[in-house]
């Protein structure tokens, strides 16, 4: 999809006047109101903004879970609006990783099986699947916890399982919507160290929504949303 010899490299994700409207008529709600955004491969971006400013809506569109009402979204140069439901699912399967605020692990299912899930849909052979899932769990520091179910793990450990699940397929873009929202500060910093490591060492592009400036400080770039628009875009602390 990328063209390495192109003099002006294609951004990994690009929003052009993206708008998202929920509802109809008087009851309609413009969650996104003409967003322009461009993120290059390898960046670590934090998204901040007040509640209801459209951060999650933007993440869902970026993650190909949702489509814009108007405007265009290109992933690696490919217009996502033109893809059908299955094609978007394949794009998620092969290029994207998700980490959610609520972890969203399968209950009563071991950490290993949770991490194996995306590989199952990729039809990775059994032995390879086990090996990759174990190695992903090792990367997030959960060696020895493979057989535990989410109920038997702490919040921080559950979020690390979720990160292992997102990175086990080697995605190009990792989307994290308030990944530290449910964690105490120390656990939050552990997660941030993990994401920073993945970004630096494996070159995974990370896009993360957070409320906390101390977490946003890990990112190389911070985008502020307000009322469905990008209000600020620059270095952490708001001083480019």
């Amino acid at each position, binding site marked *: 999809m990328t063209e390495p010899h192109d003099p002006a490299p294609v951004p990994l994700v690009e929003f052009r006047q993206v708008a998202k409207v929920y509802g109809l008529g008087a009851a309609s709600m413009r969650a996104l109101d003409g967003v322009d955004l461009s993120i290059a491969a390898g960046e670590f971006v934090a998204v901040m903004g007040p509640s209801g400013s459209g951060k999650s809506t933007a993440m*869902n569109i970026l*993650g190909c*879970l*949702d489509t814009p009402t108007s405007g265009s979204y290109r992933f690696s140069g490919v217009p996502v609006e033109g893809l059908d*439901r*299955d094609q978007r*699912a*394949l*794009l*998620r*399967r*092969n290029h*994207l990783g*998700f980490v*959610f605020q*609520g972890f*969203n*692990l*399968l*209950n*009563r299912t071991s950490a290993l099986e949770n991490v194996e*899930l*995306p590989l*199952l*849909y*990729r*039809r990775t052979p059994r032995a390879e699947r086990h090996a990759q899932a174990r190695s992903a769990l090792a990367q997030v520091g959960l060696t020895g916890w493979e057989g535990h179910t989410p109920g038997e793990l702490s919040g921080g450990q559950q979020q690390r399982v979720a990160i292992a*699940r997102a990175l086990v397929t080697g995605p190009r873009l990792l989307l994290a919507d308030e990944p530290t929202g449910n964690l105490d500060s120390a656990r939050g910093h552990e997660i941030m160290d993990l994401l920073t490591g993945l970004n630096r060492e494996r070159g995974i592009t990370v896009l993360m929504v957070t409320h906390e400036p101390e977490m946003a400080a890990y990112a190389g770039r911070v985008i502020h949303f307000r009322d469905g628009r990008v209000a600020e875009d620059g270095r952490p602390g708001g001083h480019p």
Partner: protein
Amino acid sequence: MLGNALLLALREIRRNVLRSVLTILGIVIGVAAVIVMVTLGDGATLAVTSNIQSLGSNLLMIRPGQRMGPVSGSGGSPFRLDDVAAVGRDIPAVQAVAPAATQSMTAVAGNANWSASVTGTDNRFFEVRNWTFAAGRPFTEAEVRSGRAVCVIGATVQKELFGLQDPLGQKIRLKQVSCEVVGLLQAKGQSTMGTDQDDIIVMPLRTYHRRLAGNRNVSLIQVTVREGESTEEAKGAIERLMRKRRHIDAHEQDDFNVRDMKEVANMLTGTTKVLTELLSAVAAVSLLVGGIGIMNIMLVSVTERTREIGIRLAIGALEREVLMQFLVEAVALSSLGGVLGIVLALGASVQLADLLEVPFIFNPRIVVIAFLFSAAVGVIFGYFPARRAARLDPIEALRRE
């Protein structure tokens, strides 16, 4: 993909064992009921046919009265002794003729009394009915000719009147007649009509006429047809002869009937078949109800697992993969129900066949059909819930807690 879906389905069933078992109960009962019905029906059919074969397939029975289905109708004067003689004399295809007159009567022996069917006939009666002796002997020529008070009894009469005692040489009193038991018949069991064939006292026809009936009527003529002769043709010849002897005009109906035991066999097995099919159809309805039970529980399951489905979709599961997962789960459930139903049915069939005294016949075809049917129930009733799961919006699904 199918392997994975099966793995997931089995995990899900294991996770909710009690609920799964309750869900498939309808299918279990439906499958079991169908198989039991068919198995017992097959057994009953076989019992009927072998029972009739034991009577001899070349046996014709001539009775007064118009024919009505498998039983004789009323009306029509009884036969006379010269009718019997004419059948034996004028129809070459006939091998043996046994006249009989029957009446139900109270028999007394010592303190015991018992109501039995008393038949007056001769030794050919035992021949045409393929009836052998357990003890004693048939009548002698002299006993038949002079109408002596002797009798041969069936196993039921022996049991009721004499218990464990040896009946030979004992006296049985019928009305004012005291007759001596000279023979005991081998037990034959129930007839095709469900009457006890062993509840019988046989005596010479002459004795019966003179001392019990007070008339010379014959109520049944049994005829065996010679080997190699057509029973159809013999039947036709007998009908023509009897019409002539009974002065029946061309436009009048027969006031007697000649029955070929083969025909009776076909009629009865036909009836058994229809009955089996009817009961199986009723049983199949419970399979349908079982299917609705599966659909219900699958819909509940989809609602409960909305978040799980959201996770799968977000991770990149295709619509058809989620559909397949839930469909396989429904089919796995219903097939499990089918297998349990088959096991239950075979156990119950063996027990019931024993109880109803019909042979147990294992019918692999109905087992396979029942299994495939239960799997099909899973596909049909699992499809709607599975499609609902597959079409969920991942964002909506993830938001659900």
